[in-house]
């Protein structure tokens, strides 16, 4: 065979694997999970475009309800004779394990492509390591590891080919993010190569083994002790053969592609004494280290494991130089309690079995959760194994000051070669920096002979998130799988980032700096912070600037500065001649934006054309003395925040030692308040004269950044602190204040959208108005500080279950990193205002677990008494069960406490009787009153217990708090409630336990980027429903109502805030299961989020989202349980839908389909309304009643 000339492409690892998988599959069952989701999305998009597989058939891509479902579906497809695959990671892979055992046990050819990701333990992490694939190593699947984007492409093919021949299924994996999301220039494998390699006879044999009523067989029998064992051993020959078949496939692929792979790939000195063994992307960093060390004349080597299962000990031993004396096996996973991590144990066993007892093997652990792994660390490993008395078990890349496992290394040991051009870009998620850089990598990769690599780092915020793009260009292939730390060019796409990031620290001496500056040639230097100026002068950096925003706006691109800055980058980077670069940029613009419309291309081209005229050199001037060390948090911050949280917020978490970390994943709440990100350009400014104290601004604020208090002035208010007399009869003798938290506001504008109070003279002037932040910042900072000191109101002074009343209560969920204008967070904040000081939250994985629990800070907080929501996230699929467990624990402890109080009645005196009476009465008519009584009793009880001895008293110490009513809330999104967690949710609905469930329904998998769920409505476009969802949304409320004893509230805060607040209060009151389904607009709806509350109004007005409350208590009283809070629909669905891109886009793409789906969607609405109408006899609306109060 001869190598066939290949076409190259600059793509990421996910696409590299998915291209092969789509070509060689017929049935693809998927479920979204980071970082594997893009593989499924690409496959779906290709199938939607009608792109066929190798045999001319368009693969069927089906989204399932969970990874377990996807595994089940591919198992079925395989049994019925199809070529089938799926893509997954982390917990998703764990959910597939039961089916994986089956598929392997039945010797079925199949491939799962895994973007390897950390398994959640003490915390969830979306990043990469091998803990997921290692958890699947016992399933009987072959495991093939790719170390690079090119290998992800090649080994995808090796997997699909070998499995057909070997009949053993393949788990093909590559490192999440580092490989799955790295963009690299690779050679593509064309259809002609595939055709030459695929053996049609093997496919026929697979089909012949399939279930077929014309040749019926039975598979999946139940076996007894007599034969199960023998049957299990019967498959051994297939495994014995597997490694050599895999190598043979690699050889055949190599013959046609010119890329020759081995089961174990060795690099370095042929007479090496010290060898590092590892697998995955770490091989890139290690290769760079080995090259560097070879230059130093060291006898070292690197052995990269490609086929991990089966572990071919002969091939392994043969690949290891005979001169090897010491081996360090580096595992990217942790198996606590084991003798060593898995790859280490395999290597030890392999060498022992091959009789190479002269080789000393040590175990290192590195790179958990995408922890950086650099050539310098690899050098440190070699130093460690060469050191007399080196450790047998160690870690690298962290500072372990607890068990002392970590090794030292010199981080500056390695320098990248000069022929590699390195560029770093600092931007915001919203400014298009990442998109432009992906584009730049493609431009260089696809229009020059250079190799290109792009890797992108994001922070964990959804609003105001920062991004750093790492781009390398080189005439030689790029192996460097680590971040750039000495860049030739640093571009700062948002001016303020120059002073608050490590951008200049990562610039090499003499490097070029490109600043996006609004200040012009004369004033840019003076606006650079003095600390940054010093770095520029010290390193001799050459600074250029451009006002990209002005150019983008002039071109009609709004805030999208990406093409302007991209053009300036190419001008300064000298990778391509400028005219060629501009032509290439325009070519990419046409390619990327052409299908969106000529005007998009034209405007972007205009921005390109204007960019260089605006680029100027910034002459360095003087440096002032104002060089301050940034204080991340004030001295009054709690100790943990100062020691740990502040370091994380300053992007220096990598430097924290092991001892700084909680041992069990337990963190203090109330930390978001210390993270002053100040990301808003505009903030709401209050006009007391117009305000009617309705509280709707505070209710709607997704970030708790606008708040109300009633107070008696003490004369200590700062100048400019505004207040007003109350409107109405509430709060006699007090003043009212509506205060913005200027550094915590995201500037989303939702508060202004919902404000109902207008100026009589000028309609646009409301009681709050968005204004530029800077002129108000100092004053509002002082005001907010004073505001926080104002005592919280006594709950008895407000009508808690009203919009206005609830908004005078302290929110215990504040300043989350959710998207600006988020539709979910207002509900959570309201929840905490109503019951936060006695709530436990079980939070399903998803957006709410990320903005709620992703380090560095949490928005969940506590009040002055130290009470607040206690929060935990278990998994995605089990959240309802998780919450139920909490309730059961609460109940048993309460029973125990009652027994103990009874047993200690004499010692406790009259208090025991009071406690028992309160417990027996359980008067839930006023829960605040009940809880107040219980708290007093428990406080007295604890006081008494402190003076008592004996085991009963000590036992009561531990359960006394359970005598206080605890509000258990199970919170999650629609992906959890409608899909992956539905089985558990249904079970909990049927449990009858006193538990509350809040479904934040965005109608799409928001956190993973907008995949369709069963909550996605008919006609909406989403990932996996790119042609518009063809089926209707599941009526979850209806299902819950069918139990009869479940309180169900369907709410939309923007449509009827009063109904929302009442539903929350009633759900809490209901002694049984309560389900609240809360309409939560999301950026995945394609709307202007500042108007999300108005969209909710339209959703309700069209009957698309009918508001109702189903209260079993009413039925007991002889009334219909269902209350329709919505009026008869007043606008057609189309009118609502036309304002949201998720619906409207389909009208553009496929008008006929859109028309048909719109009509069906209207029928859905009419049908449901008709049905609900029959369930009720009473219509009412409580809309805005309180505003008039």
């Amino acid at each position: 065979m001869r190598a066939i000339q290949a076409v190259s492409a600059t793509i990421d690892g996910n696409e590299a694997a998915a291209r092969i998988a789509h070509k060689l599959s017929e049935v693809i069952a998927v479920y979204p999970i980071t970082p594997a989701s893009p593989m499924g999305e690409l496959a779906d998009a290709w199938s939607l475009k009608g792109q066929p597989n190798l045999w001319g058939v368009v693969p069927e891509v089906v989204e399932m309800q969970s990874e377990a479902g996807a595994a089940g579906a591919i198992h079925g497809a395989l049994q019925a004779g199809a070529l089938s695959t799926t893509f997954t990671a982390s917990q998703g892979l764990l959910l597939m394990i039961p089916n994986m055992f089956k598929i392997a046990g039945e010797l079925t050819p199949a491939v799962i492509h895994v973007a390897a990701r950390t398994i959640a333990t003490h915390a969830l992490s979306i990043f990469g390591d091998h803990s997921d694939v290692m958890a699947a190593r016992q399933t009987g699947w072959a495991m093939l590891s790719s170390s690079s984007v090119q290998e992800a492409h090649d080994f995808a093919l090796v997997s699909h080919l070998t499995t057909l021949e070997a009949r053993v299924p393949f788990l093909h994996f590559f490192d999440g993010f580092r490989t799955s999301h790295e963009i690299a220039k690779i050679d593509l494998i064309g259809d002609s190569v595939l055709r030459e390699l695929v053996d049609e006879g093997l496919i026929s044999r697979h089909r012949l083994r399939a279930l077929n009523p014309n040749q019926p067989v039975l598979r999946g029998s139940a076996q007894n002790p007599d034969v199960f064992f023998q049957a299990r051993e019967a498959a051994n020959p297939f495994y014995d053969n597997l490694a050599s078949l895999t190598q043979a496939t690699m050889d055949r692929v190599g013959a046609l592609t010119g890329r020759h792979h081995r089961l174990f790939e060795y690099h370095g000195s042929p007479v090496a004494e010290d060898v590092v063994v590892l697998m995955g992307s770490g091989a890139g960093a290690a290769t760079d280290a080995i090259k560097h060390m070879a230059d130093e004349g060291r006898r070292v080597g690197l052995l990269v494991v490609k086929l991990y299962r089966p572990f071919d000990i002969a091939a392994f031993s043969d690949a290891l130089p005979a001169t090897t004396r010491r081996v360090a096996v580096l595992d990217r996973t942790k198996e606590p309690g084991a003798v060593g991590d898995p790859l280490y144990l395999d290597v030890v066993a392999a060498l022992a079995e091959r009789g190479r007892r002269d080789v000393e093997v040590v175990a290192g652990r590195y790179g958990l959760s995408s922890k950086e792994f650099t050539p310098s660390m690899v050098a440190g490993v070699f130093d460690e194994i060469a050191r007399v008395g080196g450790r047998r078990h160690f870690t690298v890349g962290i500072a372990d000051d607890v068990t002392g496992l970590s090794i030292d290394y010199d981080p500056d040991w390695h320098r990248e070669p000069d022929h590699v051009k390195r560029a770093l870009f600092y931007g915001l998620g919203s400014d298009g920096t990442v998109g432009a850089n992906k584009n730049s990598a493609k431009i260089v990769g696809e229009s020059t002979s250079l190799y290109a690599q792009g890797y992108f780092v994001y922070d964990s915020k959804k609003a105001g998130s920062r991004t750093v793009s790492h781009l390398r260009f080189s005439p030689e292939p790029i192996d460097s799988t680590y971040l750039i730390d000495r860049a030739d060019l640093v571009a700062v796409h948002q001016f303020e980032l120059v002073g608050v990031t490590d951008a200049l620290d990562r610039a090499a001496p003499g490097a070029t700096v490109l600043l996006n500056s609004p200040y012009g040639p004369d004033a840019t230097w003076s606006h650079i912070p003095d600390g940054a100026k010093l770095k520029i002068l010290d390193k001799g950096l050459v600074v250029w600037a451009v006002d990209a925003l002005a150019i983008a706006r002039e071109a009609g691109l709004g805030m999208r500065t990406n093409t302007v800055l991209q053009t300036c980058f190419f001008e300064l980077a000298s990778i391509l001649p400028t005219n060629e670069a501009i032509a290439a940029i325009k070519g990419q613009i046409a390619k990327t934006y052409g299908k969106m419309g000529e005007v998009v291309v034209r405007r972007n081209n205009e921005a390109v054309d204007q960019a260089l005229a605006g680029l100027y050199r910034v002459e360095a001037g003087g440096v002032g003395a104002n060089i301050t060390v940034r204080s991340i948090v004030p001295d009054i911050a709690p100790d943990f925040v100062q020691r740990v949280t502040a370091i994380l917020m300053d992007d220096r978490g990598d430097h924290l030692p092991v001892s700084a970390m909680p041992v069990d994943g337990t963190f203090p709440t109330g930390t978001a308040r210390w993270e002053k990100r100040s990301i808003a350009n505009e903030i709401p400014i209050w006009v007391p004269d117009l305000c009617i104290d309705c509280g709707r601004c505070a209710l709607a604020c997704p970030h708790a950044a606008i708040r109300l208090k009633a107070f008696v002035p003490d004369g200590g208010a700062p100048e400019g602190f505004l207040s007003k007399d109350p409107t109405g009869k509430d709060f006699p003798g007090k003043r009212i204040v509506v205060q913005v938290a200027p550094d915590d506001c995201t500037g989303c504008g939702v508060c202004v959208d919902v404000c109902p109070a207008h100026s009589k003279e000028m309609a646009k002037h409301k009681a709050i108005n968005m204004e530029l932040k800077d002129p108000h910042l100092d004053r509002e900072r002082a005001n907010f500080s004073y505001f926080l000191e104002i005592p919280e109101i006594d709950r008895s002074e407000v009508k808690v279950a009203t919009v206005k009343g609830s908004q005078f209560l302290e929110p215990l969920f504040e300043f989350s990193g959710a998207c600006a204008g988020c539709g979910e967070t207002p509900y959570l904040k309201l929840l905490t205002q109503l019951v936060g000081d006695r709530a436990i939250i079980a939070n399903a994985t998803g957006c709410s677990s990320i903005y709620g629990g992703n380090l560095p800070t949490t928005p969940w907080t506590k009040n002055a008494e130290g009470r607040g929501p206690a929060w935990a996230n278990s998994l995605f699929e089990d959240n309802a069960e998780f919450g139920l467990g909490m309730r059961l624990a609460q109940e048993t402890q309460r029973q125990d406490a009652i027994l103990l109080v009874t047993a200690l009645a004499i010692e406790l005196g009259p208090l025991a009787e009071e406690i028992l009476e309160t417990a027996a009465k359980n008067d839930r008519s006023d829960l605040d009153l009940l809880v107040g009584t219980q708290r007093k009793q428990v406080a007295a009880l604890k006081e008494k217990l402190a003076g008592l001895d004996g085991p009963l008293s000590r036992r009561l110490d531990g359960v006394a708090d359970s005598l206080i009513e605890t509000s258990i809330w199970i919170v999650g999104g629609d992906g959890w409630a409608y899909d992956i967690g539905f089985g558990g949710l249904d079970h909990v609905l049927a449990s009858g336990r006193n538990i509350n469930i809040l479904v934040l329904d965005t109608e799409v998998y928001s956190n993973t980027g907008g995949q369709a769920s069963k909550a996605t409505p008919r006609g909406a476009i989403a990932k996996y429903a790119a042609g518009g969802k063809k089926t209707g949304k599941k009526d979850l409320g209806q299902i819950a109502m069918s139990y009869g004893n479940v309180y169900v509230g369907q709410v939309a805060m923007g449509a009827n805030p009063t109904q929302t607040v009442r539903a929350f209060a009633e759900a809490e009151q209901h002694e049984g299961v309560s389900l609240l389904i809360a309409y939560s607009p999301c950026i995945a709806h394609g709307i202007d989020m500042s108007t999300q509350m108005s969209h909710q109004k339209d959703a309700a007005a069209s009957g698309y989202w009918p508001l109702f409350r189903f209260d079993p208590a009413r039925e007991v009283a002889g009334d219909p349980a269902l209350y329709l809070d919505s009026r008869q629909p007043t606008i057609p669905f189309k009118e609502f839908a036309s304002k949201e891109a998720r619906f409207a886009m389909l009208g553009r793409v496929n008008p006929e389909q859109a028309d048909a789906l719109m009509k069906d969607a209207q029928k859905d609405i009419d049908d449901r309304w008709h049905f609900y109408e029959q369930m009720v006899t009473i219509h009412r609306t409580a809309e805005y009643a309180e505003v008039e109060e």
Partner: protein
Amino acid sequence: MSVDLSVEYLGLALAHPVVPSASPLTGDIDHILALVEAGAPALVLPSLFEEQIEHDAMAVHHGIEQGAGGFAEAASGYFPDLNDYNTGPSQYLDLVRRARNEAGVPVIASLNGVSTGGWSLYARVLADEGIDALELNVYRVAADVEESSAHVELGYLKLVESVRLAIDVPLAVKIGPYFSAMGSMARRLVDAGADALVLFNRFYQPDFDLETMEVAPNLVLSNPYELRLVLRWLAILYGRVEADLAATTGVHEPEDAVKCLLAGSSVSMMASALLRHGPGQLTKVRDGLEAWLETNGYDSVSQARGSLSQRAIADPVTFERANYMRTLTSYSPTW
């Protein structure tokens, strides 16, 4: 004796002068076929809006990119990558194609541009599609208090010139009545290349929602009274400009079409009445026109055209200021 209803408009031979004007009805092929069934001799399609096209494209651009590249778990954004977003004129061109293939009557496309480049670009695109004629819908609100009327007018003339240069198909220009010197403007538009003038445009006008205290623009259907302004200018311009005249706005009943004809229009265009009563109204107006002509002894529409135009009546001042004077003096106080 039958009346010859045939007319020539924009060089197109039409069976009669009652034509459906641009409206949602002509934007849908089923409705188009119903109109043809009802006797429509030609069709004016709804306007292709350059502003709408640009807005849609930018909205898709924004929608697709919103949130993309900002968060590790949703790095590719929140919408699927679609093959084609149809943001350009393709849907409109589909309509043109279907109307041409299926209607069997001349198809006049309509265009509302924003930029000079856009007008000629889309005019060419439409001309290439084989339309029988093009109607330019050129009204805009000149809200800039610094912009003179002369400048606004010059802009109109330039765009008509640029489109005229760009295409060869017959060109109608549909204008609003709000020119200080309507007559002069009409003549200059014809000089700039208009083969016909369509009098007059109707637009979304602001309304106030007193509950929400918001401005709520909308478009209400025309009423027959609005025809009078049209009649005035038809009558004044007839015979004074080298172009066909078309009446639109307020043509509801047969009498309205008769009046337009007498004032000088080549065709009378209908929208509101068709939306209100359905395509059958077109038949009714056509038949009523024929009946009136027959009853009043006309052989053809051309014989009647312009017979009550300013040039043709005894007291031409009637169409100018005297009209107001006479109304006042004919008013009889009752006190």
